[in-house]
């Protein structure tokens, strides 16, 4: 299994698509996550604050862009958007093996199918770790720049909070990556796996479940609390709100706490891993 892990890591390390995926997320994290919002909040015309409570302007939202808020801001901003990049990594890791036909090359070497699968998932987890570390790294740097430009405090959250944030980010992105991996294993290709993964995230949970959650009662919310993206949301929200203090009371509390979210996400990851193992072990390789 160690050989499989080593060579799967080598393959991911050498693959340009992996670095494009990671690099694009990091560029977006700086550009979209910080630069765009910094300019919007800083140079917004006074009329754009219409609708906000008295005394609150868009400038007050810049609090989210400073180092003290970077962990919760990164998690709340990227738990779904960044998850899509992790999903693509998971799909690429497995789906391309079917597309190129290299699955038969792998399976006719010495390690068994499960050892190969374990190595592949281990390498994918390393790629996810790089993705998360990179995302938090560039977010931290961007927040310092924003604070220095505005002459605000450059104090970061406590180390414990940063570590917890990294762990939460890793769990959220690992869920997405394994979700992509199992879809690619199921459909034996990349295109359908990415398409259905995004459709599920955006249409099913992002739109339909959100509407149901808003109009339904507690029973509906209770049911929805067992779906994965609701729990990536609960987990990121558990780090707190990034809204100005004057708006804090208007922010709805998450329906479930972080412990529930971690448990549900771990269950999904375990089920997806088991599903991938069953599919990989039992299926004929005909392509």
């Amino acid at each position, binding site marked *: 299994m160690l*050989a*499989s892990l*080593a*060579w799967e890591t*080598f*393959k991911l390390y*050498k*693959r*340009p*698509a992996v670095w494009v995926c990671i690099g694009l997320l990091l560029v977006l994290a700086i550009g979209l996550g910080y630069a765009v919002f910094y300019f919007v909040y800083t140079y917004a015309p006074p009329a754009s604050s219409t609708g906000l409570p008295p005394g609150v302007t868009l400038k007050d939202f810049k609090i989210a862009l400073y180092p003290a808020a970077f962990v919760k801001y990164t998690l709340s901003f990227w738990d779904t958007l960044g998850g899509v990049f992790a999903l693509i990594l998971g799909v690429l890791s497995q789906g391309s093996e079917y597309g*190129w*036909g*290299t*699955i*038969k*090359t*792998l*399976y*006719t*070497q*010495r*390690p*068994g199918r499960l050892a*190969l699968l374990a190595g592949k998932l281990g390498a994918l987890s390393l790629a996810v770790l790089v993705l998360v570390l990179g995302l938090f790294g560039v977010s931290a740097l961007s927040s310092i720049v924003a604070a220095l430009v505005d002459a605000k405090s450059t104090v970061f959250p406590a180390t414990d909070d940063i570590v917890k944030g990294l762990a939460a980010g890793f769990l959220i992105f690992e869920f997405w990556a394994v979700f992509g991996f199992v879809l690619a294993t199921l459909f034996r290709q990349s295109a359908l796996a990415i398409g259905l993964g995004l459709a599920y995230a955006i249409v099913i949970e992002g739109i339909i479940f959100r509407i149901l959650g808003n109009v339904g009662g507690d029973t509906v919310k209770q049911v929805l609390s067992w779906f994965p993206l609701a729990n990536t949301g609960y987990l990121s929200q558990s780090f707190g709100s990034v809204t100005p203090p004057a708006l804090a009371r208007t922010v709805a509390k998450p329906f479930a706490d972080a412990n529930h979210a971690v448990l549900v996400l771990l269950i999904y990851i375990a089920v997806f891993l088991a599903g991938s193992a069953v599919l990989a072990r039992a299926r*004929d*390789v*005909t392509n």
Partner: protein
Amino acid sequence: MAREKVVEAVGLSKRYGTGIMAVQSLDLNVFRGEVYGFLGPNGAGKTTTLRMLLGLIRPTQGAATVVGARPGSPQSLAKVGAIVETPAFYPYLSGYDNLRVVAGLCDAPGSRIGAALDQVELTPRAKHKFSTYSMGMKQRLGVAAALLKEPELLILDEPTNGLDPQGMADMRNLIIQLGQGERTVLISSHLLNEVELMCTRVGVIQRGKMVAEGTVEELRGAARLTVRAEPVEQARALLDSLVGAENVAVREDGTLTVKMDLGHTADINRALVEAGLAVTELRATTQSLEEVFMELTGTEGGL
């Protein structure tokens, strides 16, 4: 002394979920040191059989052992090098890096990579990306990867597919070279002249069933006598009386084919002439493997 079986399949069958019976009760024995040709038209079940021997596909019925172990088990795969259909590698990696991955996974020392590349004459292009390789180079890289384990058994599925004439000749020479000594080679093909040149023993599969097996000479059978004489009906009747009707056949071009001991050719000639028949051709012919194949499978070999 009994020869050692490197591949032994008994009653191997595969029915796909679609209901297609790809392989039916196939018995296959490949002995150590031979180059075994697995012949059949497209869709006959060759690739499915080879995939079952590599553990890529599970048989519906029957069993097989490959180099003494269950197909697809680490014990078996450690001794088997294979190319199944088109060689598949990572397009963004160089040929050399692709071999590093394969060597790493099959626990072969990295020092073998250079030797394998030399053997298939791919060293000058080893650092180039696989995606830039021609079909012939891809096939040769596939052979190099299969050789990394120093396998006891080499399974090559249609290794000359997609190659130009020069590439086919190079691949054929390489396979002949690889098949020398103790190494066993199991090669599938629908190109009969290739198999005739490379293989010591041949099995013919048609619609998932083995329809003939033996050495090339055994399959081609004994030489026959081709006779052209007029009138054909009288010549046929005379030959039937001389060698038996079961040994005489009339071909579409009006010639007669006679299975017989060619030592009696002069006697046949004399009998035909004395009966007043006009004999215009009398020659010994040997069936080509292609003719045997067409006879067995009802298809045009190699087309």
